[in-house]
């Protein structure tokens, strides 16, 4: 620990020579976890924008199929009058999912907030391995560039779906989108994996080794707990995906046959390799990607817990049950991947086991929801923007969680599998859930990042519109799902069964457009407040956790004193003190230092 401390201290002083070298050292190739976190934050926000625009492309096609698609259509398909081609539609949804999952949600949670918050919240001066940390950011760039390139190799992005199911993805020329673009896609995703792996190793070490004196594991804020569990998930699940990715690469490039059965005839050419099994990929892929779903929600849950506790001015309800349920979700998360494959042709007996496990995983989630509500109960709720986003997370996560039960019920899943019911479900978990939590977290920790407040009115407006529009966009998807409306169809309305659904889709698309437009308010707010927002002191929200004892923004080394922790993070409204908050570092009134003789 001490070594790494000096390390980061050195580098804090080295670039002080000024000039470009100084700037680069300080802001570009920085090893300061806060800078890295902020770099992550803004890179991912940029991709968030791109992913959103891709989504608009999808919505446009679904609302007004084959009509002239603004911008994209006119740029790429001028000869066809801006009417996109079907394979471009496949790349639209493939890249939308890819960007949102691998470039936005995972890095913004682990990369941005993990980086920024972990050392601050545990009272460390930096990550355990600052250089590794820097690398974990700069390994995102090969990924950015590779996926960026795949956008510009016809047909402008991989088109085999983000799940990249073979044989479609594993054979050159099986689909337009699975030409070279797919290879770039695989490489890109692998780079993301490497980056996340570096991150998670770093987080684990930091959380285990560099906690401030008195910061026992059960005094960790839930954010840190969730980051900790997430890091474990990543560390165990990622290698599988990486391996699978390489197997698919060799299937494509070297003609191996891991996922290719005998005697396929695709695009009128017989495929040489054989002896493989497409289901193998699905197993490997979901063995990572299902835990990944929790990688994408747990940190959000953690941050929401902190925000709700802070603005209810009340201790979190059932701290330990919360921790246990997080771990429970993580544990069960490893044995439920099969519920993505109920109708995939895998042995139906397996289906039953996975179904039971899946049902069980709803339990810890339920516990968390009840605890959040218990936290609000009997508190003094302050309706700040972060609180609004956090609350909406709870209310939306209820929908996302409950709709999951339908899919878990195998017979029902026979019908709703690969329909918009699924789409509704994971958008409620990932957008209405995680994304809303992320917005909340940005509003919440922004003062700590830049030492200025974000504009509260704009924030509330942003929340209100987003909340309305996202429900307008995603809630009707449940109904579509009940009709059996399948995903990934470029033009569903030539099926008699679905023809009547177009007006509904048009409504949803308009909401989607509104939702993306709303984010302009957010973007402006961020950049405006960065320079014009009111300056704040160390603890604008009157919150307990350690980061609020550091100056905002914190300098290198974070703390201008050695923080010593006396109690858990959620002692709001404690009778011991007359303030309604009780900093973890604040010594108890009478000098009996509580336990943990580290002082």
């Amino acid at each position, binding site marked *: 620990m001490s070594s790494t401390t000096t390390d980061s201290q050195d580098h804090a002083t080295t670039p002080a020579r000024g000039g470009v070298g100084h*700037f680069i050292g*300080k*802001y*570009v190739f*920085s090893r300061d976890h*806060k*800078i890295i976190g*902020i*770099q992550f*934050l*803004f*890179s991912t*926000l*940029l*991709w968030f924008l*791109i992913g959103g625009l891709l989504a608009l492309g999808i919505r446009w096609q679904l609302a007004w199929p084959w009509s002239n698609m603004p911008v994209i259509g006119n*740029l*790429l*398909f*001028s*000869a066809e009058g801006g009417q996109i081609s079907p394979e471009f539609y496949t790349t639209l949804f493939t890249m939308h999912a890819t960007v949102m999952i691998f470039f936005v949600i995972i890095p913004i949670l682990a990369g941005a907030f993990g980086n920024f918050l972990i050392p601050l919240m545990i009272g460390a001066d930096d990550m355990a391995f600052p250089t590794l940390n820097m690398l974990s950011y700069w390994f995102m760039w090969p990924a*950015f*560039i590779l996926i*960026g*390139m795949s*956008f*510009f190799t*016809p047909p*402008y992005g991989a088109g085999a779906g983000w799940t990249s199911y073979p044989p479609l993805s594993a054979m050159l020329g099986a689909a337009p989108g699975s030409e070279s673009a797919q290879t770039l896609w695989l490489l890109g995703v692998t780079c993301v994996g490497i980056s996340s792996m570096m991150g998670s190793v770093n987080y684990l070490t930091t959380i285990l080794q560099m906690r401030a004196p008195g910061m026992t594991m059960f005094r960790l804020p839930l954010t840190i707990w969730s980051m900790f569990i997430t890091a474990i998930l990543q560390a165990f699940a990622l290698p599988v995906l990486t391996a699978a990715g390489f197997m698919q690469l060799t299937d494509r490039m070297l003609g191996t046959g891991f996922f290719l059965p005998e005697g396929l005839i695709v695009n009128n050419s017989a495929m040489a390799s054989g002896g493989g099994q497409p289901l193998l990929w699905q197993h490997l892929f979901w063995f990572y990607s299902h835990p990944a779903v929790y990688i994408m929600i747990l940190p959000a849950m953690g941050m929401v817990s902190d925000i709700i506790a802070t603005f209810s001015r009340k201790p979190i309800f059932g701290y330990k049950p919360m921790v246990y349920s997080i771990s429970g979700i993580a544990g069960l998360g490893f044995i439920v991947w099969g519920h993505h494959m109920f109708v995939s042709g895998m042995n139906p007996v397996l289906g039953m086991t996975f179904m039971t496990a899946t049902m069980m995983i709803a339990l810890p989630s339920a516990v968390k929801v009840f605890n959040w509500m218990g936290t609000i109960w009997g508190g003094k709720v302050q309706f700040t923007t972060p609180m609004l986003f956090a609350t909406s997370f709870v209310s939306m996560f209820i929908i996302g969680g409950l709709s999951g039960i339908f899919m878990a019920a195998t017979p029902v899943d026979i019908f709703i599998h690969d329909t918009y019911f699924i789409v509704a479900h994971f958008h409620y978990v990932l957008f209405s859930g995680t994304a809303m939590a992320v917005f909340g977290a940005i509003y919440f920790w922004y003062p700590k*990042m*830049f030492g200025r407040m974000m504009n509260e009115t704009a924030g509330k407006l942003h929340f209100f519109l987003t909340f309305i529009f996202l429900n307008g966009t995603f809630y009707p998807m449940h109904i579509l799902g009940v009709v059996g409306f399948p995903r990934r169809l470029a033009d569903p309305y030539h099926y008699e069964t679905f023809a009547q659904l177009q007006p509904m889709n048009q409504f949803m698309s308009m909401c989607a457009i509104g939702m993306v437009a709303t984010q302009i308010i957010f973007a402006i707010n961020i950049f405006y407040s*960065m*320079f014009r927002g009111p300056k704040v002191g160390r603890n604008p929200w009157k919150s307990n956790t350690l980061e609020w004892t550091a100056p905002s*923004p914190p300098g290198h080394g974070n703390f201008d004193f050695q923080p010593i922790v006396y109690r858990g993070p959620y002692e709001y409204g404690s009778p011991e003190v007359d303030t309604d908050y009780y900093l973890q570092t604040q010594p108890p009134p009478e000098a009996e230092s509580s336990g943990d003789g580290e002082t």
Partner: protein
Amino acid sequence: MSRGKKNASWISLLLIVGCLPGCQRKVVDAWSPNSDAARQIRDVVEPGEGSQATAGLAKEPTGFATLRGVVQFNRKPNVPAGPSASGNDAKLCSPDDSALENTFLQVGPNNGLRNVAIWLTKPRRIPEDPKWIHEEYQAKRDAVLTGKDAFDQKKCVFLSPMFAMRSTQKVEILNSDSMLHNTKIEGDPGGGAAGANSGISGGGKVLYEPVGYSNQPFKVSCSIHGWMQSWMLVRPNPFFAVSDLNGGFEVAHLPAGIDMEFRVSHEGKFFGADVTATVDGEPLAIKSGRLTLKNIEPDSVIELKFVLDAKNYE
């Protein structure tokens, strides 16, 4: 610190924007029509108000003349070896593995060039009328060309590399080889000369009816033996000729007193400025194969002479 992240976002923004130009799909630019001109033309071209303009032939022929000519090189060109047979039939095509006959450039002892086609292009429509078409032609008008007149192939080469016929005639496609050939006739949509593609077993034959004519020679090939390649010319009138091994050709009974345009080509290449042409000793202008003969006397003999520069053919 604000610069830190902006920097990051800049790079990625530039990356995306920088790539944008590269993402235009390759397509031909349309040849944009002049639409109001189009509307006017529509009124003219489309029938309806009976504006059936048949190109009226001003003059009547005053008799018949003869067109005789010769195509020669200025010196003996050195003729490259012909194609070599490949595939399983190679042995049958040339038992001694020698190169096949070069039918693409056949030069006679007097440096004459064979397979030069010359045909009448103007006036376009020659009436079926003895004043225009001499009785002697009538006999063969609807003939079926057989035997030595037929279109034949032997030793995996076409025996008549430049075959000319009338659109009213039919021709037998023979196969004097032992192995199977297939004769793929491109035809010419311009004049409606039919395309055809039929397999012909050794010693077998099929009949080809052109139905329409062709404006210029079109290709004939064999898809089993890729090197086999020859030309065919189908004309709506009898006024055409193909030069023999001495480079000589003759068109008899040419309607006299009419301004006429002929066209000359060899192996699909029109004679151009590099050819010095003379008519009765007088220099004759020739552009992209076209040459015009004016005021032809009845019963006269017009002597054409084409001198080719050998180096253009080596």
